[in-house]
């Protein structure tokens, strides 16, 4: 091995905090449905414990062997609307509590999959699950929920979008004492993938294995440091954007390799199949772990200023190019995340007024995953929230990509005020929403936005 390779690798792991962001075990719960909710809950707890009982311990063992931290150990399950179909709202809430209990039992911090797919239409199970979401999420600790309301093949279910505006309002009002935090555990999707290891939107899709390990790669910090080093070595005046794109690509290759190596070892130890590596750059509120910082390094003096969308597009594409070659199976969301509260630079840009909801929306048309972790005034009405969702879903539907919305209306607070959710969920100034209350007639139509045409692409 060449000594410069050794030194570069050591630097990446030690100074740049290379890690594996998430090892997520997907578990099918389809065989857990029983005659009543109580027995179903027992079957769920038993099955999760049976498969994931050693997940945390195994991740820690492999992590110690390789001296690469596995930051989050999580579980995704079959969308619960399928598992609990036939039960009423109370039955679903019992299942949510059972999932919470199972998560604590196996020692993970978050479990995703309290979910439904209503892109085409709504079953009775979907209805009961959606009705249960506000109580389920505000009375459990570790459960995350998601609803897929649209797809490129099916169009957008606008009845569901209208309903979910109210669900988000209720989630925030039920958790008013924590700034509306319950809404941070709920996300609305178009083209939701069934193999995404990242929360809050992880589910174990119906087309997946019985049990599987999916992995989310290291965060944006490693990319940021690589860019800084390249610019310091070569001088900004000697570098074109293509050189920086190449640096991102190479670093993404290394980061992905590391994720795949660790993920495959965990899967081998647990004797279950390895699913995918998700290439997404997921920021955290920690210093030096920000996608916004990469935008600054790449030349934006204010995030949200003209040029920001182009930079995000280049970053996202370069990460995919490096990662796709590094991994045997790439999947999940695989794009740069721009979750405002969870990314210090983005949160600061919202505070300074340079980054608006509209610019964030534009950025999501070229990256993963959508309007994510954005605190908005508690006074914004449900129809306006639904309309914001509809806009974002349309971007995903037309462009054949995943988009999502995770908005947190903060009860009793207005734009410019501050909210902190703590830990990985971060903090932010509340972003202004323009033209509130002007979308009611549109949302009131309901029905469906038809699936888009797949030719005449312009």
């Amino acid at each position, binding site marked *: 091995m060449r*000594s410069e390779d*050794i*030194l570069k690798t*050591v630097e990446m792991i030690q100074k740049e905090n290379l890690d594996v962001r998430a090892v997520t075990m997907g578990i099918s719960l389809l065989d857990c449905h029983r005659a009543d909710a109580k027995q179903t809950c027992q079957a769920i707890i038993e099955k999760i414990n049976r498969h994931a009982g050693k997940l945390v311990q195994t991740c820690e063992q492999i992590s110690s062997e390789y*001296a*690469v931290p596995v930051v989050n150990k999580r579980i995704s399950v079959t969308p619960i609307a399928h598992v609990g179909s036939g039960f009423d709202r109370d039955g679903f809430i019992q299942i949510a509590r059972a999932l919470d209990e199972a998560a604590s039992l196996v020692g993970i911090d978050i479990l995703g999959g309290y979910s439904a797919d209503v892109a085409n239409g709504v079953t009775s199970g979907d209805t009961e699950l959606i009705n249960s979401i506000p109580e389920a999420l505000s009375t459990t600790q570790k459960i995350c929920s998601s609803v897929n309301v649209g797809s490129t093949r099916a169009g957008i279910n606008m009845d569901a979008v209208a309903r979910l505006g109210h669900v988000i309002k209720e989630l925030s009002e039920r958790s008013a004492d924590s700034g509306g935090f319950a809404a941070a555990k709920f996300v609305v999707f178009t083209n939701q993938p069934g193999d995404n290891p990242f929360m809050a939107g992880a589910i174990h899709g119906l087309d997946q294995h019985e049990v599987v390990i999916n992995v989310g790669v290291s965060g944006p910090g490693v990319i940021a440091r690589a860019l800084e080093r390249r610019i310091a070595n070569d001088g900004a005046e000697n570098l074109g954007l293509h050189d920086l794109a190449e640096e991102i690509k190479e670093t993404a290759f290394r980061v992905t*390799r590391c994720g795949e*190596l660790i993920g*495959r070892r965990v899967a081998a*130890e647990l004797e279950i199949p390895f699913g995918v590596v998700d290439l997404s750059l997921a920021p955290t509120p920690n210093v030096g772990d920000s996608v916004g910082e990469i935008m600054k390094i790449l030349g934006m003096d204010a995030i949200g200023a003209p040029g920001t969308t182009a930079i995000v597009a280049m970053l996202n594409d370069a990460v995919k190019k490096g990662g796709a070659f590094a991994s045997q199976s790439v999947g999940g969301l695989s794009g740069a995340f721009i979750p405002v509260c969870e990314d210090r630079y983005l949160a600061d840009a919202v505070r300074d007024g340079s980054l608006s909801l509209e610019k964030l929306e534009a950025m999501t048309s070229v990256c993963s995953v959508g309007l994510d972790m954005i605190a908005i005034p508690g006074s914004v009405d449900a129809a306006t929230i639904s309309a914001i969702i509809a806009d974002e879903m349309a971007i995903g539907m037309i462009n054949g990509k995943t988009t999502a919305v995770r908005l947190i209306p903060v009860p009793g607070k207005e734009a410019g005020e501050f909210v902190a959710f703590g830990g990985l969920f971060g903090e932010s100034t509340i972003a202004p929403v323009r033209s509130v209350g002007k979308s009611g007639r549109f949302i009131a139509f309901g029905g469906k936005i038809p699936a888009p045409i797949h030719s005449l692409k312009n």
Partner: protein
Amino acid sequence: MSTQSIEYIISITSQDRIGIVYEISAALAELAGNIADSRQSVMCGYYTMIMRASFPVEVTRQTIEAKLAEVDRKSPTPLNILVNSIDEPLAIMGSPENRYVLTASGADQIGFVARVAGFCVKYQINILDLSTTLSQGEFVMMLEVDLSRCASISEVRTALVDFGRENMLRVVLQHHDIFKAVNEISLPIRPKREH
């Protein structure tokens, strides 16, 4: 080549010049010697080579030494030559899953290498490859090591933290697979470990 053969380890040191490899290998070929493995390195104009070669049973160590002494006599630069037969079977080199890379960096000081090597002896760490370099004003020592004989990796890691602190060194122990994974095209994939 006869079916019966004996293996030798031959090492040569000399001032570097054109033709050393040719002269040595030609001499060995005349004795029907088959070179199985070899490494060479040049440092400050000095050349060193170590090789593993097998010879028919009738070629003795003395024959090889005499042949190489002949090369030395004709050589414009003196050659330091050592020939040893491999009597014991090759020592087990450890297993790939126990292969790690240890790097230690800090201010250049007398006894640096000895201290790090001493640590390796204490924890039964076998050094497979060693190189040192100066990087950003620091002395950096890089060792490929085998930890097969260590009782526990976590014990070594804990001891390494103390060792680094006591000696004012930055020491990092990383699995060899990580380096392969991030620097090479193919991914090192391993099955479940036997416990």
